[in-house]
């Protein structure tokens, strides 16, 4: 072994190069990373199962007790996407893990010693995670919609993609999941610790949404529309409740995206400046 040449043919092939290791290289590297761990597959599978399964249950409940539901006011799309309430937590966990697992395993030190331009690593990792999440989110969202509508059709309450706002809501569901995941990704870069980052993401997305219900009604109306999950959830509703004080669909999504952007920018600053 000791007498083996370390770089026989490779020497000529590897060395003369122009340019520098850049974003494209980092994207390929990060894509290999995300697809080569089992937790990615399990989490993405869980996302689809939870979105479709919980949506199906919600629709089955409605379909079995359709009495008193007015088809004019009933939001069949939103009902079939009910699993997104749970799915947001699943994808938040994966978003946090995408970056915290580098710290918990120590891999970050290896990653940064092959690509020391940290902004490149952070951006590539985020883009790869966002694209993977968006594609899986579309599968989950459309899957939940079609399964849910099939169940609701037994009670003649189902919606179709051609109806107003429905296509926007189903695609919006996938965007909502992506934004939740990116929020957790930013939090992961700030906190660097898996449990802490997932807890923080769940706190922001889920616990805040619950807590705000306990506020007096008059305060609630001005506060809850700013809650990230409630605001972002408007994008996958197709019917506006009369007298609603919530933001419109894209306005609400912009609020959620704003939270995610703040977390990502703060995460990037931490990632670039702190010792790894």
């Amino acid at each position: 072994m000791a007498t083996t040449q370390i770089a026989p043919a490779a020497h000529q092939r590897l060395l003369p190069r122009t340019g520098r290791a850049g974003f494209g290289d980092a994207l390929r590297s990060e894509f290999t990373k995300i697809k080569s761990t089992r937790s990615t597959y399990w989490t993405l599978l869980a996302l689809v199962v939870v979105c479709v399964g919980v949506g199906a249950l919600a629709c089955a409940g409605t379909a079995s007790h359709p009495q008193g539901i007015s088809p004019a006011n009933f939001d069949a799309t939103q009902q079939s996407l009910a699993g997104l309430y749970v799915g947001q937590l699943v994808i938040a966990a994966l978003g946090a893990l995408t970056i915290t697992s580098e710290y918990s395993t120590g891999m970050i030190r290896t990653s940064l010693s092959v690509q020391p331009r940290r902004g490149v690593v952070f951006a590539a990792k985020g883009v790869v995670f966002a694209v993977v999440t968006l594609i899986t989110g579309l599968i989950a969202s459309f899957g939940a919609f079609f399964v849910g509508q099939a169940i609701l059709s037994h009670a003649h309450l189902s919606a179709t993609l051609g109806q107003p706002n429905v296509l926007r809501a189903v695609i919006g569901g996938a965007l909502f999941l992506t934004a939740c995941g990116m929020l957790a990704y930013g939090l992961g870069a700030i906190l660097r610790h898996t449990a802490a980052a997932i807890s923080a993401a769940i706190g922001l997305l889920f616990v805040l949404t619950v807590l705000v219900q306990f506020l007096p009604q008059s305060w609630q109306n001005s506060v809850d529309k700013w809650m990230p999950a409630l605001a972002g959830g408007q994008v996958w509703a197709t019917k506006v409740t009369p007298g609603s004080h919530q933001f419109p669909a894209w306005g609400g999504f912009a609020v959620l995206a704003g939270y995610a952007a703040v977390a990502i920018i703060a995460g990037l600053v931490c990632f670039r400046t702190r010792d790894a």
Partner: protein
Amino acid sequence: MIEARGLTKRFGDKLAVDQLTFTVEPGRITGFLGPNGAGKTTTMRMILGLDRPTGGSVTVHGKEFAKLAYPMHEIGALLDAKAVHGGRSAYNHLLCLAQANGIPRTRVGEVLELVGLTEVAKKRSKGFSLGMGQRLGIAAALLGDPAILMFDEPVNGLDPEGILWIRNLMKALAAEGRTIFVSSHLMSEMENTADHLLVIGRGRLIADCGVAEFIKRNSVQSARVRTPKPEILASLIVAAGGSTVPGADGALVAQGLPVDQIGDLAFENGIRLHELSPTQASLEEAFMELTADSVEFHAQAPRQRDAVQADSTDRMHPTGVA
């Protein structure tokens, strides 16, 4: 070539690396020595840009590490064999690193072959032994066919076979004209491999010289003498300008006088000698002598050491028992 100029790192009120100025010259093995906590790892982390220096600078081939076009072609490093995602296979681990620097996929197979991990390439690295993990880390360092290789305590915890393998690998790499920068807290390891030494203690540079010069400069000439009349001989040696200390098995250890002069002294005074043997202080002794004042944690304060370096008790420095 690695050049550090006034390199300093402070953690809170603790000065980990203090004004280090040195050059790691190309084409030879430079040993980086110091007791645990001396600042070796922190220095290496600053070379790779993992830690930001509090003061001073360090460059690789004249450039800041983060400004190198293809870092893996310039410097391959193994700081910590455990710095991998254990859920990823050896092959995928190396592949994701190679891709980050645009290195072709075929090179991954080459380095796996080189370190002898081809058969377990598809296995997740969390099941690897320490020796296999070390080989995987070395494979990663070799991916870019770099001119400089940097290893932090590469033989730590390895079995004799693994130690021999790494030692031979470093020599082979150096023979190819590469620069090797390797840290250790074991002087004996460096005695066998290094051409040049950088010795640090408490973050400061203590020595920067060749191995032979280091031994010559720091070792005290001494001789082991066994005689039925040690007291008389001891007083004669002291009178001649030397000094003595009692040895382990009743022998006398004489210092400061050449062996032939001790023999003459005994002959002239009619003292029978049963043994007279020169002892060359090993590098280990020279190193312990030199760093005696700069060992971060002595064994007298085990609690303090455990609290600060609970994860590195397995590499307690030999002078720690002083």
